[in-house]
């Protein structure tokens, strides 16, 4: 293995060697290295295999654009797959593996696919694996396996992730020359500034620049600028911080990798990553630009890199990526790479596709002085080398730019530094809704008008010279701060001495000796193995839209999201279509700019108590002490059933059901939604919002209310009591309280603002204890001596005020079980005291606590609906057989809709009861109902089961169902074919199974005694 580390230079700390392994091999790098620079320094050529053809691939870039070096970092529960080695800081003991290639990247058995590449063209998967459709899961299994892409952690992540909210005047994304200049100008004015950069060090291009600023090295100027920024109290500097999305109204997400670089030694529970949610008055985009690859045959061999990456590895990491190099370019900027290589001791040949070479004469002169051969008007037509490029074939390009002419020259090399020009990283600008404009002279898209208060600066704005970047940054920083109300000015602009030029003559597809279809693959998107020939094929097959071609060829689909090759692909598409690049357009960039971990997205809201708020009643600890099982309704934790030792749910619920019907049960009903309604128009308001009549309800009385949407469909129900002439106490379903309050406020505020009525949510203000069963009156009487519980004095559907255990209570005589039943309401704090009193008083009468499951069974025995279970937003009161709850006397919300043709047609699904012919068979809720399961599929479905239980009181199963035309099908037998192949037969009947005459909930005193 070759040692490619240069003897001196770079920003690495040679006193701090770091040991790491790559695919099990022990290697050494230094602090300051990325994993990529350390791999290159150790002479590692192959870091992965390509997605489709399993071609060997090496490191291409030095940042977020890297398409090949996607590695699995770390082990066990902390491991992360598919990290770009170019962005992973090396740490002591790092374990890195490639994510694809089997059995190894050096020898990949699947590479045989490469020989069939012509058969694996664009759309191959669509065309080949379509038939038979039933085999797709099998195909998918093998496609996934051959494609690779890492493994998931083997356990829960032991680290923490956090979210952080921040506000600022000016947010600057990217701390290269332009970003730092902007921060200086804005910061000097006193504006609150956040400057973030994805790298471990702020500085961007300055970290690998050989230019002089104000007569000193770029690194020296950077040090001074950062020192000044650190002194500013209102400036926040964030390194290892990627702005991954620019959302509406200048809301920017920044992922700060606080501890990823500390590796596996990280103590459990440490905060590993933190998402900053920043709201900025002004955003300055300074993420720079990406260098494009050139599209020539076999341009994907290890040892072929972008020119700027080569310069970065030499200058910043002191790694010489090759000894004999060819720089292949269509623009002036990569001449600097040739000089960097020369300085590092490599031999260099410059292949410049432009017929007269560099536009800036000084560059040509410098190259000549250094003895660098320039082949102007030449291109690389092919490369060779199995595990690393070892030879390029260079030919002269014809004037038409489409052909090559003359004799081929073979050059033996071990490195190709290529440059197809620069593309501003317009991602965040695009996220924010901004469009991009094509700049013909610069041959790139530059950010266009912004939808938000944001500006692009420097290379991100298509300004590529260092001096201009600094100027642009200073001006933009000052302007942004001024707009935020600060007195800011651009100030002194540093002088830069560097030979700079970005002159370019675009070359999108490098011509070769053969047509694009016959020539060896020339890759556009390395990660997805998309070649130029795939794009031309897509056009031949009729694709025109860039968005369709993207999806057909997978261009720009990978984790690097087309940062390296998208513009090349779009330009080749435009060329093939004979259209201009602006006409062809670009695909849409969407967040995230680079992948964000699931942990960072979830933050602390993962599992446990912080996942969702928990609501409990005043009696919750009592329920827990009784070993209740809980059911989550909305956010409420409600007792579901109270199993005794050895009881399963079925036996516990049967026992509770029997207890209520035979003796007495007690239910915590505190979670029911409660709304206090007051005002002179309270009754009139209820009359409009409920479908039944409310004006004549007497004070002291309760009434069941049914609430419809304006579309006529049932949306909520509950019992409401008239406490006074202008005062009502409304109850809603447990899950519907907030929705109903919002609904009433909507009508009051927007449609009937003249009405004098006020709503207050009182759900949490009252504890509600329901005592139900034939002994309930006896229990209440023994508790409360200031209420007369006789039927005459306290009839069904009324309420009384009194005291229990010295506490003021409201007692409602209402029933959701069909039994004689009272609901005691007391100020919530006293809930447990009243519960205890009821429990004590009920002991001689066998009082039994019951949960929601028993409540459901008992109400189903009575045919009482639960909104949201027996209804689904498409059910009218008529469908439920509840015409009695529809008044004729006045208009109400939803009434007109009930007259629509669709609401009066005859075969609507209607609520019925079902009795299974086998009394012990309990239908599954949701089971589909049919008349004849033997009919050919699709068998016409005529309804479905909404509620289904075994009734211990009746000794058989009961069910409610919505059945087409069900009200007129009483006595019919229908069938429920189940998933296990059996068919359950049931008879359609009334949904009221128990006590159809309602004799139990309002018996005479004698009967109860």
């Amino acid at each position, binding site marked *: 293995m070759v040692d490619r580390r240069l003897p001196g230079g770079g920003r690495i700390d040679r006193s701090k060697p770091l040991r790491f392994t790559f695919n099990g091999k022990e290697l050494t790098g230094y602090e300051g290295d990325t994993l990529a620079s350390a791999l290159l320094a150790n002479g590692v050529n192959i870091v992965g295999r390509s997605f489709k053809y399993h071609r060997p691939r090496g490191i291409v870039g030095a940042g977020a654009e890297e398409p090949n070096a996607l590695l699995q970092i770390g082990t066990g529960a902390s491991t992360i797959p598919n990290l770009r080695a170019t962005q992973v800081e090396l740490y002591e003991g790092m374990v890195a593996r490639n994510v694809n290639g089997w059995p190894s990247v050096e020898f990949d058995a699947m590479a045989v696919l490469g020989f069939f590449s012509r058969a694996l063209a664009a759309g191959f998967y669509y065309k080949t694996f379509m038939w038979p459709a039933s085999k797709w899961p099998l195909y998918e299994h093998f496609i996934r396996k051959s494609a690779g892409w890492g493994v998931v952690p083997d356990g829960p992540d032991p680290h923490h992730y956090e979210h952080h909210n921040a506000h600022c005047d000016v947010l600057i994304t990217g701390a290269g020359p332009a970003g730092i200049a902007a921060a200086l100008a804005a910061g000097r004015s006193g504006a609150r500034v956040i400057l973030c950069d994805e790298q471990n060090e702020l500085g961007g291009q300055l970290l690998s620049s050989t230019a002089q600023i104000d007569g000193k090295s770029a690194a020296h100027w950077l040090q001074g600028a950062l020192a000044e920024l650190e002194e500013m109290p209102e400036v926040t500097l964030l390194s290892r911080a990627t702005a991954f999305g620019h959302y*509406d109204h200048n809301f920017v997400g920044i992922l700060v990798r606080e501890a990823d670089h500390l590796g596996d030694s990280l103590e459990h529970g440490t905060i590993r990553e933190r998402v900053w*949610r920043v709201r900025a008055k002004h955003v300055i985009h300074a993420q720079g630009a990406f260098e494009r690859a050139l599209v020539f045959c076999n341009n994907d061999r290890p040892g072929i890199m972008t020119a700027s990456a080569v310069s970065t590895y030499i200058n910043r990491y002191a790694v010489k990526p090759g000894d004999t190099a060819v720089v292949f370019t269509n623009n002036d900027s990569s001449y600097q790479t040739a000089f960097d290589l020369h300085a590092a001791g490599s031999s260099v040949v410059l292949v410049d596709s432009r017929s007269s070479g560099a536009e800036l004469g000084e560059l040509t002169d410098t190259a000549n002085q250094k003895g660098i051969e320039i082949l102007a008007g030449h291109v690389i037509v092919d490369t060779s080398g199995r595990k690393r490029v070892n030879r390029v074939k260079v030919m002269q390009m014809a004037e038409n730019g489409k052909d090559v002419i003359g004799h081929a020259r073979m050059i033996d090399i071990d490195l190709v530094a290529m440059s197809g020009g620069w593309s501003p990283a317009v991602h965040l600008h695009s996220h924010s809704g901004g469009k991009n404009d094509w700049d013909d002279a610069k041959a790139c898209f530059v950010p266009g008008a912004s939808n938000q208060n944001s500006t692009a600066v420097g290379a991100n704005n298509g300004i590529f010279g260092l001096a201009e970047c600094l100027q642009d940054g200073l001006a933009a920083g000052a302007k942004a701060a001024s707009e935020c109300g600060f007195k800011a000015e651009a100030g002194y602009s540093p002088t830069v001495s560097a030979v700079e030029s970005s002159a370019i003559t675009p070359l999108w597809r490098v011509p070769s000796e053969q047509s694009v279809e016959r020539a060896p693959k020339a890759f556009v998107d390395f990660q997805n193995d998309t070649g130029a020939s795939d794009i031309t094929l897509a056009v031949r097959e009729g694709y025109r839209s860039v968005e369709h071609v993207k999806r057909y060829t997978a261009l720009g689909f990978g984790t690097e999201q087309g940062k390296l090759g998208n513009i090349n692909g779009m330009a080749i598409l435009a060329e093939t279509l004979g259209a201009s690049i602006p006409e062809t357009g670009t695909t849409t960039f969407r967040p995230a700019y680079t992948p964000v971990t699931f942990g960072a997205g979830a933050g602390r809201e993962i599992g446990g108590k912080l996942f969702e708020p928990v609501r409990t009643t005043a009696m919750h600890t009592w329920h827990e002490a009784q070993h209740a099982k809980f059911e989550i309704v909305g956010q409420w934790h409600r007792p579901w059933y109270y199993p005794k030792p050895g009881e399963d749910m079925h036996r516990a619920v049967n026992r509770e059901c029997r207890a209520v019907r035979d003796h007495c049960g007690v239910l915590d009903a505190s979670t029911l939604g409660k709304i206090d309604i007051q005002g002179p128009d309270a009754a009139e308001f209820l009359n409009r919002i409920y479908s039944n009549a409310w004006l004549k309800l007497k004070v002291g009385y309760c009434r069941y209310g049914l609430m419809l949407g*304006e579309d006529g469909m049932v949306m909520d129900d509950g019992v409401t009591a008239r406490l006074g002439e202008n005062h009502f106490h409304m109850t809603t379903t447990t899950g519907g309280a907030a929705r109903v309050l*919002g609904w009433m*406020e909507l009508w009051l505020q*927007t449609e009937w603002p003249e009405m004098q009525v006020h709503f207050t949510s009182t759900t949490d203000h009252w504890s509600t204890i329901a005592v139900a069963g034939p002994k309930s009156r006896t229990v209440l009487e023994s508790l409360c001596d200031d209420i007369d519980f006789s039927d005459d004095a306290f009839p069904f559907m009324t309420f009384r005020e009194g005291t229990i255990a010295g506490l003021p209570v409201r007692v409602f005589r209402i029933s959701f079980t069909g039994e004689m039943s009272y609901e005691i309401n007391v100020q919530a704090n006293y809930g447990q005291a009243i519960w205890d009193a009821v429990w004590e008083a009920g002991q001689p009468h066998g009082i039994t606590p019951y949960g929601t499951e028993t409540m459901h069974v008992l109400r189903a025995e009575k045919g009482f609906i639960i909104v949201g279970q027996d209804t689904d937003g498409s059910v009218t009161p008529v469908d439920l057989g509840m015409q009695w709850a529809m008044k004729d006397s006045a208009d109400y919300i939803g009434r007109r809709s009930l007259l*629509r*043709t669709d609401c009066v047609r005859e075969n609507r699904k209607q609520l019925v009861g079902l009795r299974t012919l086998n009394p012990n068979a309990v239908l599954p809720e949701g089971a589909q109902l049919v008349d004849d399961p033997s009919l050919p599929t699709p068998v016409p479905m005529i309804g479905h089961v909404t509620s289904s239980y075994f009734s211990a009181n009746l000794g058989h199963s009961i069910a409610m169902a919505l059945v087409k035309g069900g009200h007129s099908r009483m006595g019919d037998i229908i069938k429920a074919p189940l998933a296990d192949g059996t068919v359950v037969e049931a008879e359609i009947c009334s949904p009221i199974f128990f006590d159809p005459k309602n004799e139990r909930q309002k018996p005479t005193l004698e009967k109860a005694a």
Partner: protein
Amino acid sequence: MLLITCPYCGDSRDESDFTYGGEAHIKRPLDPDALTDQEWADYLFMRTNTKGYFREMWNCSSGCRRWFNAERNTVTNHFRSFYRIGEQPPVPDTEVNNG
């Protein structure tokens, strides 16, 4: 994450503090029985699909709980105005989609 200004509370807060209410200025017919099914369905179901400034309702659900109206550009999400229920939109109807 939109930034919304409640015209009652007066401050700007995150969208997550608010609830969306759909198109604004749809009046409930005073005499529903006078409407044909078609006309009623139009009131009930049909909403304009505006490209440009759109008048819509928002509820300050984590604040004062009041409903208010806003004019939002459906292309850029820029809010041009926030105004109370019962108030006339600051920009007359004829100019609604010209901004």
